[in-house]
Every structure is written in C-alpha cells, then in structure tokens.
C-alpha cells in the first residue's frame, strides 16, 4: 500500500513537471522547430517518467507467467502525420507540413482506476499552431455499463467527433459540420459513459456536464454545459443515435458568433454489406441565442475493397453565417482512396470540391500519410 502511495505521489509530480515543461515550451518560442523539440522532450519525458516504475497492482498471482501480450498496465502511444494540400482558392498557398503530432499515456492503477493523458501539437492549414492537452482525466471503471471520467474529455457527440483523430478517420477533410466548430470539441468536467447489451441490441450512452469547454478554432470558454449522447446498435448492422447538448457562452472567447447554443445531432451508420459497404449520415441542428438556427449534414459511403484498401465518397451541406451575418450554404463533395499497409501506417489521396452560394467554387486535393507508434 505504501509503495502504491509513493507511486501516486510520483504520478502527481510527473503531471506537474509535464505541465510546466509544456507551458514553458509553448511560451518561449512559437516556431515549428521549437514545437518539434518540445514535443520530443515530452515524448522522452513520458517514456522515461517514473510512471513506468509503478507497482503491479493489477497482476494476478494466479496467472501463468510469461506469454501474455496484452492487458498492459501502462500504455504509451502516439501518432503523427504529413499532409500535402493543393488548394485552388484565391490567396491560399499549397501546404506541406506536419499538421498533427499526438502522444498519449494510459496508466491503469488497478482494475477500477486509470489515468489518461494526451498531448497534441496542431499546425493545421489556416490555423495557428497550438500545443496543449486534448485529454487529461481520471477514470473509475465500475463495469462496462458504467464508467466515470473526471477531467478534460472529448465532447462525446455522434460518430465523427467521437473518432475524430486524423489517424482513425476515413478522410482528410473534416465534415463541414465539424469544420464549423458549432460546439466545443473538448469539455472540462464529469463524463459518465457505458455500453449495455440486451440480446442482439447494444445501447451506448454518454452524459457529461462541464464547467469550461474548449473549441479548437475560437477558443471559446463556456461557463456551463451539459450533453447526452445515446445510441442503439441492432442486428450487428446498424447504429442510430441522438446527441443533445446545451452550452452557455461567457463571451470571453473569440467566436465571431457568440451566444448560448443548443445542439442536436442525429446520426445513423448502417453496414449495407457487412464490413464491406458502410453508409453513414450525421445531421446537426444548432440554435443560438438571438440568431437564426442553422442546419447541416453529411452523408458518406465507405467501400472496403479488402482489409488494406478502401474508397470513401462523401457529400456535405451546411448553413453558416457570413461576416455580414447573413446565412449562406456551404456544400462539399469529396472522394478518398485509403491504403492501410500495416497497423502503423496509413495513406490517403483525396479530392474535394467545395462551393458556397456567396463565392465561386474551389477545389482541394491532398496526399496524407499517418504513422502510429
């Protein structure tokens, strides 16, 4: 027990030092090379941190020694990607850079408690470079149907946001309803989630309440928010769900369209041919204080040629507010060819054509390579 307490202290000091190092790195220099250096320091720090010396609380004496290749009590991982983006748009240059670098550490204290930390560096086209924590929480796992997380979490909303990392999604361009940042993508608060099986039906739920949310683009700080995501999967083929949330805006962020928000997201995912052809749709309805409501959706088909190659076809349409506060419609068509030669490497080639009813249409094409470690 004493050893466990000592380890708890070392975890606390590790987090503290990590926070200091990340913030120092970011404040002292904002060049790309410095960020890369900060990131490497972070990786080295996590890799050689005292976390790895924790006692084996989860090991069962009854298990045979050796030969076990999973159930690690400490897992460290990460990924990064390289993007070449050619843009046919006025004032936009082509882009070749490393848009994302992520590192995460997952530490199981015992069968019930775990800590999770994820640090990211984002240098996406058209956005400022940032280094910060995407997730940082403590989890209590009562059972598969009931888990409680406290800290910074990804806002659990629908299908795409739930699995939004460039390494795990099918396309390079985000769906428009995600690009517009209609709601905070991260929430600081309490998250209760779980999966319950009833015969061939699976019910998943997520409830969160937060004091402080973060939106990648506008850095909105919301005073209070809550949300519920509920889905049902039937016959191993289809998953249908609904997300509802409400966020109160304190007006401290840089969002050009501030105000309290109510977001409703309906989603469905169906395996038209099991594990071969997938059809997915997400529809979003946004209400904001003192403004007209906005609607948007995307619908996509993914065809798995085999376990390594796939094709992805997507249509997006959403409403948004122009700088002069008029509602306009934004549409996008995109086609992606994906290749996953190993579990550590992914490649994508994508073509996208976008149009707004207030400007001329334009095209994007991109090559993306992602590496997991």
């Amino acid at each position: 027990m004493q050893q466990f307490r000592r380890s708890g202290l070392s975890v606390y000091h590790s987090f503290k030092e990590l926070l200091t190092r990340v913030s120092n790195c970011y404040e002292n220099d904002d060049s790309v090379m410095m960020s890369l250096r900060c990131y490497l320091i972070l990786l080295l720090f996590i890799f050689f941190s005292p976390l790895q010396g924790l006692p084996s609380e989860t090991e069962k004496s009854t298990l045979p020694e050796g030969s076990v290749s999973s159930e690690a009590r400490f897992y460290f991982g990460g990924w990064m990607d390289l993007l070449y983006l050619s843009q046919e748009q006025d004032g936009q240059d082509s882009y070749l850079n490393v848009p994302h670098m992520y590192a995460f550490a997952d530490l199981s204290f015992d069968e019930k408690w775990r800590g999770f930390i994820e640090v990211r560096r984002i240098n996406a086209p058209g956005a400022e470079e940032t280094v910060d924590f995407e997730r940082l929480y403590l989890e209590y796992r009562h059972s598969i149907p009931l888990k409680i997380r406290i800290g910074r979490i990804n806002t659990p909303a629908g299908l795409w946001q739930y699995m939004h990392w460039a390494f795990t999604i099918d396309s390079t361009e985000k769906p428009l309803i995600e690009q517009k940042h209609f709601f905070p993508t991260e929430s600081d608060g309490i998250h209760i989630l779980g999966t319950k099986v009833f015969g061939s039906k699976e019910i998943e739920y997520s409830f969160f309440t937060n004091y402080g949310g973060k939106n990648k683009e506008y850095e909105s700080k919301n005073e209070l928010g809550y949300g519920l995501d509920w889905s049902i999967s039937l016959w191993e083929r289809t998953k249908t769900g609904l997300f509802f949330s409400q966020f109160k805006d304190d007006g401290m962020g840089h969002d050009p369209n501030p105000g309290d928000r109510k977001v409703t997201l309906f989603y469905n995912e169906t395996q038209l041919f099991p594990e071969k052809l997938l059809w997915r749709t997400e529809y979003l309805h946004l209400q904001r204080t003192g403004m007209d409501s906005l609607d948007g959706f995307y619908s996509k088909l993914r065809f798995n040629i085999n376990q390594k190659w796939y094709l992805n076809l997507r249509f997006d349409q959403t409403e948004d507010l122009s700088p002069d506060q008029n509602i306009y419609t934004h549409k996008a068509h995109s086609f992606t060819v994906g290749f996953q030669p190993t579990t550590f490497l992914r490649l994508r080639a994508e073509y996208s054509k976008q149009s707004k009813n207030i400007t001329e249409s334009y095209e994007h094409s991109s090559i993306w390579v992602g590496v997991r470690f």
Partner: protein
Amino acid sequence: MYLFLLIAFWVPQHPESYSKNDILIVTSLSTPIDHITRLQLKQLYLKKNETFHKTKLTPVQLKDSHPLRIVFDQLVLGKHFNIQDYWIKQKFLANEKPPISVMNEAFVLIFIERNEGFIGYVNKGLEGEVKRLGLKVIEVTL
C-alpha cells in the same frame, strides 16, 4: 508440464485446415454456463459485454498470428471484420483493452484452469486434455 511441452512444440495447422467443428469453447467446471451463442462470444471478445447469466466472464485468446485465432475471429466476428483496426480505435478512445492474448493453446487451458470465470478456445484435438484438467466444453450456437 508435459502438456506444455507437448503443445509448445506442436506445429499448428494452416487456418484452411480448420472448420467450425474443430473449435472447442472451454471454461472451468465452476463457471455456471453451459451454452453460449456466437453473438455473445463476439460481444465478449470485443469487450462489449462481460456478464452472461449474472456470471462475469474473462476471455482469453490466442495471439493474432495463430491459425486457430484466425479461424475463430472469422467465424465469430465475421469474415471481413478488421479486428486490428477495432482495437486501434479502442486504444485511441482509451476504452476497453483487448482480451489477454497467449502464445498457444496450452496457456489457454492453464489460464482457464487457474482462474474462475475465464473462457477460451482450443482445437478439438485437445478434448482429452480439457477433461484431464477438469475443465468443460461449452456448447456454441454459431
């Protein structure tokens, strides 16, 4: 011990040489379950569910290159199911961890013998060993 030596040096067959009738689902005698469906096995091995008939089950699987694992995954999860992709996503989400993976069927049997509520699969040729160790075979509806 001789069981371990016997199976550790046993050369596994190719996946094509197995059929669904060659797989035995095994657990300890004290586990109060005699029957399980393919869907329940899928939910168990994907960590969607861990309690069946009020009994907590812990799955044990063979390492992913083992021929019997390949056949089991195809039969239970589906021919085109990308299991590696599934667990990568679960890692990103910091959700459930994959089931315990072991080198060979000897370890599957040892794990089950020593731990109540553990469940695993071995090839039918080991039915004698299963009985000798005091384990039982569960009937499966595929």
